[in-house]
């Protein structure tokens, strides 16, 4: 492997990479080695046009762009010389010649690379007296993206993204010289399943999402690392939160999972967190046959009563459970323990499905399908068959995955149970069959892990608190177990201890607890993935 020296420090770098790529591979780019850049993006082809990443290389008379200069053994690079400083200053000044400088009303302000780099590398005065280009403002490029042509610095990341990632190529650069503009091709609009990524990679305020723009000043946001729950890919995200609300999901880089992208559907799934149809309190079916609000202890008491009565009358096998792939490994592990303590082995897991693609989106539309399977939850159909055959009296249901069209008639089947105990985040038709409804926390509101389709265990943590009393599925089940007086369910629920305990029962999870997997997750032990 070639060895290079950057600002006096030695690095062993991968072969066949350019300087920026190699430093990015090592994780030191803008994290020890400061080489500002606009057009270069680790997951897009090299453009070489913004010219900001110029560095001095020993033996080369001219400054070279780090993004396109192949590393060579013995290369000696300087990033902090006077020449480099002046070159950066020059690029920054020229980028601002035509920029509208409308930062006070720009939604990118605060997370704008033009602001940041102008502050860091630019000149503090303007020397231009000339009028700036007047171009299109607030253009709808499509249903998701709003474009400000004046702010664009023509780095062309968005153009390359559309060509190279979704492969839709709606965008191009039109015109020449300082009349160049990014735009959609005539008669087209920016419309693809990944369109909103262009707003993330746009270094300036030119491309913003219709969904997020002007909702909040970004400096009020706290970005909490998490995992998208939209499908079994488990794209790494940041949850942008403020005032106990989630304002957006943005992709968080994980080269093993989602690179730097997220699909539009997953991105917008944050809306479910604060949705008006969240279940905010326990509900119990009254004698009149309608669901009425109840206290948690009443709900848990009734649930425990139903389970105990049924098990005593017909044996524990009439108590069954349908797990949810939206629940965490910890939630599902508590469910396993509860079922084991009750002595029933009747369980399964309903998996909602949708259209998948070749990029990120998976057909299995839940984050923890592989986790559920690894913890022993099989298909839902055998359980449903058993219910239809009258063999189930009390059914514990996590989530409303059963409403997926592939489980047609599941609602009718559930009505055959004497009692359905539902733990869910959102109101749904499933409640019609439920006797007891318990509110639970959304993934954005709890600590735990998901196992993605490839067997990678990834951590989620509470980004917001639910504005009502609700516990995680695991803790709710823990309290149910305690109400039932089951062994091992006494005491306070400790999700970290549960997370560690998974590994002792399921060796693949050993060392994969919430505190061990780190921000980028870890593959299941012994898993080839």
């Amino acid at each position, binding site marked *: 492997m070639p060895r290079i020296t950057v600002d006096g420090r030695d690095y062993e770098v991968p072969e066949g990479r350019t300087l920026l790529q190699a430093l990015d591979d090592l994780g030191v780019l803008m994290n020890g080695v400061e080489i500002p850049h606009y057009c270069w993006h680790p997951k897009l082809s090299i453009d070489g046009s913004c010219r900001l990443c110029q560095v001095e290389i020993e033996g080369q008379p001219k400054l070279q762009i780090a993004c396109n200069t192949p590393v060579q053994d013995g290369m000696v690079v300087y990033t902090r010389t006077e020449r480099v400083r002046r*070159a950066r200053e020059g690029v920054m000044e020229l980028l601002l010649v035509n920029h509208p400088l409308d930062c006070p009303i720009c939604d990118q302000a605060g997370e704008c690379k033009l602001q940041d780099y102008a502050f860091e590398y630019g000149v503090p005065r303007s020397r231009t007296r000339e009028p700036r280009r007047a171009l299109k403002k607030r253009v709808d490029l499509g249903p998701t993206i709003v474009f400000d042509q004046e702010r664009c610095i023509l780095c062309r990341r968005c153009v390359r993204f559309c060509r190279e990632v979704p492969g839709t190529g709606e965008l191009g650069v039109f015109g*020449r010289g300082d009349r160049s503009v990014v735009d959609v091709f005539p008669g087209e609009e920016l419309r693809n399943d990944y369109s909103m990524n262009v707003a993330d990679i746009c270094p300036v305020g030119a491309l913003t999402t219709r969904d997020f723009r002007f909702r909040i000043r970004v400096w009020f946001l706290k970005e909490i690392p998490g995992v998208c729950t939209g499908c079994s890919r488990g794209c790494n995200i940041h949850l942008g939160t403020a005032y106990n609300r989630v304002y957006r999901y943005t992709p968080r880089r994980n080269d093993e999972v989602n690179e730097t992208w997220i699909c539009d559907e997953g991105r917008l799934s944050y809306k479910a967190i604060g949705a008006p149809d969240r279940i905010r309190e326990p509900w119990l079916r009254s004698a009149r046959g309608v669901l009425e609000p109840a206290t948690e202890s009443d709900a848990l008491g009734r649930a425990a009563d139903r389970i105990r009565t049924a098990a005593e009358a017909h044996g524990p096998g009439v108590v069954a459970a349908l797990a949810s792939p939206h629940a965490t490994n910890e939630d599902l592990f508590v469910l396993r323990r509860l079922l084991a303590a009750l002595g029933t082995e009747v369980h399964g897991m309903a998996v909602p499905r949708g259209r998948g693609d070749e990029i990120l989106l998976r057909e299995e539309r839940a984050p923890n399908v592989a986790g559920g399977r690894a913890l022993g939850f099989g298909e839902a159909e055998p359980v449903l068959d058993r219910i239809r055959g009258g063999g189930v009296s009390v059914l514990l249901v996590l989530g409303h995955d059963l409403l997926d069209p592939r489980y047609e008639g599941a609602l009718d089947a559930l009505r055959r149970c004497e009692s359905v105990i539902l733990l869910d985040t959102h109101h749904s038709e499933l409640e019609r069959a439920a006797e007891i409804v318990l509110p639970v926390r959304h993934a954005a509101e709890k600590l735990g892990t998901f196992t993605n389709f490839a067997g990678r265990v990834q951590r989620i943590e509470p980004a917001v608190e639910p504005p009502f009393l609700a516990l995680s599925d695991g803790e709710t089940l823990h309290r149910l177990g305690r109400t039932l007086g089951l062994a091992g369910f006494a005491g306070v629920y400790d999700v970290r201890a549960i997370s560690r305990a998974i590994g002792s029962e399921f060796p693949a999870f050993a060392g994969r607890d919430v505190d061990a997997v780190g921000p980028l997750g870890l593959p299941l032990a012994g898993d080839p993935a």
Partner: protein
Amino acid sequence: MGQRVPHVTGYLTEHFADDAFGTLAGYRARGGYETARRVVTGMSPAEVIETVKASGLQGRGGAGFSTGLKWSFMPAETDRPKYLVCNADESEPGSFKDRILLERGPHQLIEGILIAAFATGAEKTFAYVRGEYAFPADCLERAVAEAREAGLLGERIFGTDFRHDIVVVRGAGAYICGEETGLLESLEGKKGQPRKKPPFPAQFGAFGMPTTVNNVETFCHVPHILARGPDWFRSIGTEKSPGHTLFGVSGHVVRPGLYELPLGTRLDEIIFEHAGGVPDGKKVKGVIPGGMSMPILPAGQLDVPMANEYLRERKTMLGTGGIIVMNEDTCMVRVACVVTYFFRDESCGQCTQCREGTGWMNRIVERIERGGGESEDLAVLLDVAGKMEGATICAFADAAAWPVQGLLRHFREDFEAHVRERKCPFPASFEL
């Protein structure tokens, strides 16, 4: 139709007065294609490259790079098809030599291409002719058809395994498509934008294949070098810049037009002896020696031999040999307006410095010309030009910066007078 024959001819253009020279029969009657036959049947590619290297032939497209060396960059052992590109996108303002070479001597060009193809192992040549050159492109197409009909293009040329063909492609009128990688992009049907290097065309050129791009005139010298030998070629011109070239003289001269002369001919000799000097008894104010992208020379520096080693000492270059003469009435700020407008208009817009710098310079000089200049504008102009130089994907930004630097170096007083008087003090100058 413009000029048919240069005012002064030499080995490249001596038969251009003869209409028949443009036909296959006429060209053959002058011994045409005999050199190519001898090369293809009797020499090895390496020998041809060595001969061209030994001749010292420099590319005539503007950069003046060694042609033989460029050919030697083509990978010898490769399974991939190799290509040549004949750059006939002659777009440099002040330059009009390739046009005559295409119109009056297309077979001379084809013979040069054949020899280059044999030397580099190229199986096809794309001749990229600028869109405005409709007639020159027709002339070349006709000649290519004739050559193909006669078996000089196609399979088994001269009865050997050597095969080659030429595809004539017409551009759409962008200056930047004369830059070799901008040309390649355009050739592939894309927007004409120069490619970042590496990779270089010899590794990844037209359609991703190894490619060498040469100017029309460069190819035209090749048959003569192979016919008469590198020593003969080196006996013409200067030691470092051998051979003839076609100087295009325009502007305020009595006899504008083309002059085939040895490299190293003095600029004042070309202007005053060959082109008849400035009309109406006026004096020269400044001369652009090598097409608009080269820095201007003031009247006092015309005693320079027209070869890069001498022109560089005066901070300018031979470029494409397009000599633009300006008389004493000329307003150099207006010249700057024309030059910066051109480069602003033609910048492809990829690189920050070029896209923004060309426009900024143009707006500044136009404001100065209108009488709105400030004294600090000149420093800004020089600073912007300095930021553009050597910092971009291709040499266009240099080409845009150099003339501005040259004008300010030699005619700063013109700019200062505009600022001082708050108007243009050259009422007799050409109109913008």
